[in-house]
């Protein structure tokens, strides 16, 4: 067991896999940083410090600073992966899928299918997502709702340092493209991480709290928000079965359906806006496959249908809070 920050879990895992497998290469803007230097303290290792030290250890051929050209970054990852390498590309902010979506959606995600199953494209695209930093409309967004619907991609949303370790290892050892979504408000969060070389398979949800009254589903930063609500509910004698999905594609349908079968009540917490979202995706799944278990309307706690605002008061109101989740839990329980 070691205590480490979420960001360190990212960095350590990449470093270890680079050691294990020389086909792993890292690229992105400022992943070295301080160019013109020979590494050392000037090499900041990315603005999230998720690649600090990699350049000094693995050199310029495997840790590659790029210009501000996200399409070319993701495209280069695609070409590296088609050529048998395992690129780990960083989009500094998830919002930048806006300038690189074609390479993610129409290239990386589709090669295997378009080419009749005759290739593998194990490109990992890491990106920092989410709100809470007064970074406003273009630097605070969730993108899992956009990416999850895209066939060919796998979408990972770790909520703890431990999950970063286990899921990133799986991503780096698998043969499919993975969008690895790191919440920027989690980077400095610390957690215990078991030693050893273990992995967490995809589509393997984590039960965060167990209870028989309401099922709550969350991902990423929302897991902590939901957990706070679950704890408050527990004090009022309400048992929350809190599920952290860990990956949204593939999806652990079984964990969801099994839980709803017991509770009959569902609250979904999603940091993204409400339309065509993961929240609606899960609600639809349950309304289709666990309808007979349902005892109450499905509640969704999401951001509103607006861009992410700048001012703290606005952003706090925008983001789902433990109070919002608790209210939804109470609402579903009140339904008879």
């Amino acid at each position: 067991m070691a205590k480490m920050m979420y960001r360190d879990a990212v960095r350590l895992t990449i470093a270890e896999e680079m050691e294990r497998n020389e086909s792993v290469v890292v690229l992105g803007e400022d992943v070295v940083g301080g160019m013109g230097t020979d590494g050392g303290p000037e090499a900041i290792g990315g603005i999230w410090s998720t690649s600090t030290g990699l350049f000094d250890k693995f050199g310029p051929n495997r840790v590659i600073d790029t210009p501000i050209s996200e399409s070319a970054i993701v495209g280069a990852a695609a070409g590296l992966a088609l050529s048998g390498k395992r690129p780990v590309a960083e989009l500094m902010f998830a919002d930048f899928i806006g300038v690189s979506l074609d390479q993610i959606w129409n290239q990386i995600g589709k090669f295997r299918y378009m080419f009749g199953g005759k290739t593998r494209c194990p490109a990992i695209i890491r990106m920092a997502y989410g709100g809470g930093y007064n970074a406003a409309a273009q630097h605070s967004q969730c993108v899992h709702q956009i990416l999850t619907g895209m066939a060919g991609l796998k979408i990972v949303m770790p909520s703890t340092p431990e999950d970063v370790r286990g899921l990133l290892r799986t991503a780096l050892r698998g043969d499919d493209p993975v969008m690895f979504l790191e919440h920027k408000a989690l980077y400095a969060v610390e957690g215990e991480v078991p030693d050893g070389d273990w992995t967490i398979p995809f589509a393997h949800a984590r039960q965060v709290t167990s209870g028989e009254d309401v099922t709550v589903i969350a991902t990423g930063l929302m897991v902590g928000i939901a957990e706070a609500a679950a704890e408050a509910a527990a004090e009022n004698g309400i048992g929350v079965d809190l599920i952290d999905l860990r990956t949204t594609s593939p999806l652990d349908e079984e964990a969801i359906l099994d839980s709803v079968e017991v509770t009959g009540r569902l609250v979904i917490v999603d940091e993204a806006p409400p339309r065509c979202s993961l929240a609606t995706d899960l609600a639809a799944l349950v309304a289709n496959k666990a309808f007979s278990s349902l005892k109450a309307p499905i509640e969704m706690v999401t951001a509103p249908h607006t861009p992410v605002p700048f001012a703290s008061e606005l952003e706090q109101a925008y983001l789902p809070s433990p109070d919002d989740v608790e209210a939804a839990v109470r609402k579903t329980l009140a339904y008879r």
Partner: protein
Amino acid sequence: MQLSRDELIQAYRKMATIRAFEERLHDIIATGEVAGFTHLYCGQEAVAVGVCEHLAIEDKIVSTHRGHGHCLAKGCDVTGMMKEIWGSREGLCKGKGGSMHIADIDKGMLGANGIVGAGAPIAVGAAMSCKLDGEGRVAITFSGDGACNQGTTFEAMNMAVVTKAPCIFVFENNHYSEHTGFEYAVGTQKDIASRAEAFGMKVWRADGCDFFAVHDTMREILEYVRAGNGPAAVEFDTERFYGHFEGDPQNYRGEGELDRIRDTRDCLKIFRQKVTEAGLLDEAVIDELNEAAEADVDAAVEASRAADRPTAEDVLTDVYVEY
């Protein structure tokens, strides 16, 4: 130097305002009173002001993540901007946009932009609009040396040439995109202007730390573009005094680099030296202008501290005109 005394005073006053605004923000952000990603323009004032002093309200500009200077130079209200950065409901954008998204359409300021390279195509559209109106107006897009590697910037340059849009691409080469050196990230390792030239535009180059070089160059460019010759580009060599964003320790700078540029490349110092040596303005006038700028900023900060905060209901408004 073809400027009148009043024009000189106005130009310096604007540069001084930007400087005072940014230095104050630098101090305040360090205390934690103001939040958000803030990119300070200090050091580059001569570019924003040297460009915008030529423009009318009907001319448009599109800015970047480092947009305070462009906004102030194009006439945005100092207090309105400060309130916006403060996240106040009284801010220029009601606290919804913040530092990276300040806009003032009525002033021809079509927005700072958090997405590097996104402004250039927007400026081409604004320039197309100017062309349609046929009144000799232009649109200007500011881009950094880093932004010049984004595909959108290239597309925009070609599109402007093809559509003969009166668009001016102003590249501010401050030698860094975040922590990465210009010589590393721009393949030519030479300049940005020759890339622009390869898209079929006439280009200019000038010292962006010398207000008069900027201003004279822009006069030529504007004459050329307003005459209907299509787009143009210019590269200004300039300097960024603070970190990429507030909080950046700037480890990547060479030894003594910051001291050197502060010493020899400060556009306010250079302006002062030129006008006083030429006997155009007294030291005392310059000092007064600096003080006036500081006073404006004092007032803006005070007003921002006292200003209304937004409420939860405000989140939902201003998404659509009608929905």
